[in-house]
């Protein structure tokens, strides 16, 4: 078995071409080599959702996905969602999170925002029950979820306009 594999992918819209160690996770690649630290390591059991990124538009846990598995695919991290420069425009979901107090410590926030992005792309008008169900892969210990659900509802209204 080779120690490294060639990898060609798109990360936040930019082409990425490198060899990666076979055992390297996507989360290690993002955080340690690309300095994209918005996705966080927490449970590393594919359960808490702090490492959520979008792979071809679907939320996945970067902690248990091998970097080599993204070959030929498209990855979006929180850093690629909006113009992150100071004063740059936020994505409507990010704006709604800020306005509704949908974040406190912020450790889970990038994961929740990306899960919400995927949800609203798939279902632009989800009811509360759908939102709650779709958030089952992300844990927040601070907010009690209600403001997150309210933020997603509002962003859905704004995106439809």
């Amino acid at each position, binding site marked *: 078995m080779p120690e490294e594999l060639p990898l060609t992918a798109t990360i936040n819209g930019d082409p990425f071409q490198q060899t990666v160690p076979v055992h390297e996770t996507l989360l290690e690649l993002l955080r340690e080599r690309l300095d*994209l630290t918005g996705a*966080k390591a927490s449970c590393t059991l594919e359960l808490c959702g702090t490492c959520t990124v979008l792979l071809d538009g679907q939320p996945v846990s970067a902690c248990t996905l091998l970097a080599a598995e993204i070959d030929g695919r498209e990855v979006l991290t929180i850093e690629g969602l909006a113009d992150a420069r100071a004063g740059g425009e936020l994505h409507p979901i990010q704006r709604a999170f800020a306005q509704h107090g949908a974040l406190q410590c912020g450790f889970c926030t990038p994961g929740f925002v990306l899960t919400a992005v995927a949800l609203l792309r798939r279902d632009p008008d989800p009811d509360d029950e759908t939102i709650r169900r779709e958030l089952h892969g992300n844990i927040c210990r601070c907010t009690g979820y209600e403001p997150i659900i309210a933020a997603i509802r509002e962003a859905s209204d704004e995106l439809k306009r």
Partner: protein
Amino acid sequence: MTASYREVGGSAPRIDARDKVTGAAGFTADMHVPGALHAVIVRSALPHARIDRIDVADARAWLGVHSVLTAAELEPFVTANRFGPAIKDMPLLAEDVVRYEGEPIALVLGESPAAARDAAAAVNVSLTALQVVATPEEGLAPDAPLLHAAAESGEFAGSWSSGHDPSRNLAGQYHDRRGDPDAALAAAELVVSGEYRLPPLQHYALENHIAVAIPSGRRLVVHTPNQYPFLMVQALANLLGRAESDVRVIVPYVGGSFGSKEYVNVVPLAAVAAVATGRAVRLELTVEESFRSSGRHAAVVRYTSGITGGRIVARRVELLFDTGAYADQGPRVIRQAGYRSPGPYAIPNIQVDAFAVYTNKVPAGAYRGFGASQPIHGCECHMDDIAAALDVDPVELRRQHLLGLGDDFSPGDLPLDCDLPAALDIAITRLGDRRPARAADGRLIGTGVAVGAKNTASGRLPSTAIARIHQDGSATILAAGVEMGQGGHTMLARVVAETLGLGTDRVRVVGPDTAITPFDQRTSSSRMTVHLGLAAQRAAEDARRQLLDLAAARTGIDVMQLELRDGAVVGADVRLSCKELITARGSGLGGEVVGVGHVDQAEPEAATAFGLRAGYWEGSVGAARVAVDPETGAVEVLDFITVGDAGRVLNPLAAHGQERGGVVMALGHALSEKLEFVEGYLRNPSPVDYRVPLAHDIPTRLESHFLERGDGPGPFGSKGLGESSIITTAPAIANAITAAIGVRLHELPMRPWDVWQACRQAASVRHSS
């Protein structure tokens, strides 16, 4: 008349919201430290054992391993291999004995995480199992093995360590007696007793414990999420035999804490390793290791009340807390728990005996609701049990006994500055119909309430802040408040902005860096708004006054006729910019205005049973409506109302966020969360089977309300509120379940299996009667 404010009072998004929604917010783990060694802890596989031999030869020879430290290797670098806030009873690395499963025995330092991890598995530890003390009852047994010898007091010494008695396995204790409880109980018409059990809990902050220690000559810099940066400096200085000025602790954003990130051992371990190797050291725990670092005390809570003529005339409380293998904050927790345990009720005869007992488990420490949650749970379940025995409405029973605003909770303490009867009225009104019912789908509907009061920020807790007004009128505030999600930095910015007549966006907060920010006791006990907020307000006022004085001297206008607004001093016909005032004031005073603000409580020791006078009281009422499926035992919380007493709410968005977040956290404590220990072994050290609430678990209707009288000691009449809802949520849910199914569950959590069994018990009681 309500005062009107420009910045505080209305809802405002957090000042860190942008950083946090874009992923730009820097947490400790996001730091890249080139050349850092990665540390991995070798932990004990047994809960209580003698260490016969530690063989590190294979691990030292591992490719990519820099060194392996055991207690013996630490010796040249530490004054003593001991750590602990109240009692210095915890070795950084175990010496001859391990006292809990997961206790650190060795530290492997590698050039990569993988090298350190692999080598850690190659450390061979020979252990001989010793008799395990699995419960507090076992620890108090006359023939129990003694887990500790005498130990020195820690940085939190004083009255906190007074009950420490290792000859009885006691980490701490508390006793109080008022009136003649024995005689009153003997003479009572009715005596009601109840025992309530609460399991050990995990904080489960999503950010795991981490410390990055970087040596720099004589100095040591530690980056770590921690609620106690200055006390950590003192602890590290004592441990390493250095000046406090040679230890610098920097706290970035903290990914949740809830009391977990206080005296956590990763900080001294990383620090010592950095000193021993002369290299930067990164020690980052896994979630499983974080579960083995700290937790909430399991408790057995026993209440006995005597009732005569419908009045509770006497109450006896016994608390047995499981503090685990090391004292940690246990001696402080048990004193607070004992003090609060009689509840906010007028009861003339009281006896309290509270014990924190050493066992062979993960040490328990601080947890949001510090020592209040356990006794309040027992007290409030007991109040409902008394009401049932008397066949009276539990709300009326509380109304008859509740202490009101200004009443003494305990002689010598600050009288209650929360209006619990008013809060109860709001909760009951908002809850609506309280009668038990059966829903169309067959589920049983019940409601319940709980009332609680927590003396908060007791004793002497100094805070200092520095406000700098720059030439363009913008401001920087230096204040060592830890931002762990509660919104403390936003509070600081708004309080300073309000005081300086600036927009909040013109104020920057420089958070905890012990080499830069002045002393703040700690970020805990819901005290940041009151103490540090007040220090920041005073610092801003000091700076503001300097500018007004400069303007008055320059113009001859009376200071009282001048005000600072949007970066300029304005009066009748004048407008002087900060730049004009600062640059014109002559040499030697620098190019900005610097104000300093202090807060220090004048009466540190009070003549209370507890020894310390409260800074203020956090009071709350919780009210729940639940639906119980008698076929499955599943509980759904339909409605939850929480009412707090905030003095004045500075930021409704943040305040309601704290209250509702606290409810959902305690919903987990009520219905699902429990650390499962079997003979000292922790069976569920991960979120896989330690079940915290998810989005679909929250109540359909969750309301929070505040009483505001503007009478708090904090800026603009505010009080602390971060621990208010959490203390009354679980007992309100427990009482609602009891009302629904007609039988009391005496133990948390109330999982479907437990509730289903209770439903069956209730059914058989109905059939046999």
